[in-house]
């Protein structure tokens, strides 16, 4: 899967998770940029991403990923 495809799929997951069809995630997108992405929503989002890509994030990754770009890096490493 190319990085572009990863982002395309991530976009779908984000739109579904936050119920907002206008979301466009980029490399530097962080929780600040998306309404509703708070600590309560974070774990749900992680679980949805894991399901979509059939990957598993470690606790260290769950608590330290800084932006969507880093998330994509981890996904590509694991696939």
């Amino acid at each position, binding site marked *: 899967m190319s990085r572009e495809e990863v982002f395309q799929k991530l976009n779908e997951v984000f739109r579904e998770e936050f119920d907002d069809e206008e979301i466009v995630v980029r490399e530097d997108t962080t929780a*600040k940029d998306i309404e509703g992405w708070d600590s309560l929503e974070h774990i749900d989002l992680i679980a949805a991403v894991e399901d979509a890509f059939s990957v598993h994030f470690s606790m260290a990754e769950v*608590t330290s990923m800084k932006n969507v770009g880093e998330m994509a890096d981890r996904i590509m490493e694991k696939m």
Partner: protein
Amino acid sequence: MSYTSYGFLMLVLISLLLYYSFRGRFQNLVLLFASILFILWAGGLSSLFFIALSAAISFLAGIAMDRAQAGRKKAVYVLAMLAQGGMLAVFKYLNFPGYTMLALHELRGLEYEFTAMELAAPLGISFYALMQMGYLTDVYWGRIPHASSPVSYGVFSSLFLHIIQGPIDRYGQLAGPLSERRRFQAENLLNGLTRLLWGLFKKLVLSERLAVFVNGIYGDLEVYNGSYLVFAAICYSLQLYTDFSGCMDMVLGTGELFGIRLTENFKQPFFSRSDAEFWRRWHISLGNWFRDYLMYPLLRTEAFKRLGKFGKKLFGKKQGKKLPLCVGLFIVWFLLGLWHGGMWTFIIGSGLLHCTYMILAEIFEPAFQRFYKATGLDRENRIWRAFQMLRTFVLVSAGFVFFRSDSLTMAFQIFRGMGTPNGGLFTAEGFWELGMAPADLWVLVLGLLLLFAVSRKLEQTEEIASVGMEEGRDQASFGERLLAVPLHRAVFATALFLMVVLWGFYGQGYDAASFIYSRF
């Protein structure tokens, strides 16, 4: 020894002189030595013993975990966590069963004879135990490598700046700065001093004056009710904020003098528009600790995942996934309240009450969304924002009433008393009998206006992060955010100094040892 004492001032001055006379490794030795002295002075030999024991356990466990195989690694982790948690439990929660019986009797309006057992807990155990457990977990998860220098780990574990009231720092964030040589910079001196004085101003000029109202009214609940109690609740929220965040300004400012950035603990909490946002801005390092080391791991367990599936079946996809969240919130907030002490006033006021607010907010969220859609209300409208801030202040202040009360009975008495019609506060006679001199009132009012102006300015220069541990790291310092020109900062600092000297509550006869959070 409190941070507002002359002893502390001398300790900082002497340490600073030695600190900048030495190079790299010796700088950490100066910090370690100053911290040991501080702990001995403020908490005695037993505190030093337990802090050292706690640090030694984590340090050795960290090395062992990085060297061990997977199975052994987990065993080492669990044992070390049990040791840290066990010490915390023994020192802090010995009286928890007794307090629980007391609360149960109070709720039924019955008398209960209970004398709390006295066991002198080591200095700052609530804070350092969490820092140690955070370190162990970070190493276990592989988020950071284990500490290799006992001196630098000793400084992290005992640092006289964060040992009494936090912030709950993380080794991963301090290890870097502690491994470099810190050079003297005039910029750090000016920024650190400005912040230190700002903290002193909050504590000695504002908090101590607010305490006059709070102690006067809560000290005589037979006499004061109605408007007085509402006023006391407002004053107490401001007192607690100026006291605790003032202490943090002093701690972070002093840290800057040493060229070390500690974790930010407050970000203008009273500008929050919801209770959840409030906790991202109030005692941030504590909330983040519970989020990263408890809430997240809990929600990722198989049991909680199954609970989520069960919830979705029961309540549909959107609402159902909130079931594990609500159960998780309950557990985390119960423990957050308990962390403050085994008393139920804390468990409710700093725990379960907020958990209730957040669960209700989660459940009614779809209804709010529909309301916004149907009315076409602009949520960024100034009046709506102000309303939300006021509402959050009221909700939070209700929690602080429990927090301030000696017992649940007292808290309920205060809430009941608020409903009594008594407008005495609004009469000249009724107001001045609270013991505040007119001149002091002027200082307080003007001081609070200054606090508001500074908070607004700070608010404009920072963003509130909600996820991840990196927040607040690469931001400009307090002084730089407040005033861009060094000269302006120097003038501001001088003005603060004069205000603290002229209007601060200190000196003989003043009990300087009474920061509210130092009891935890």
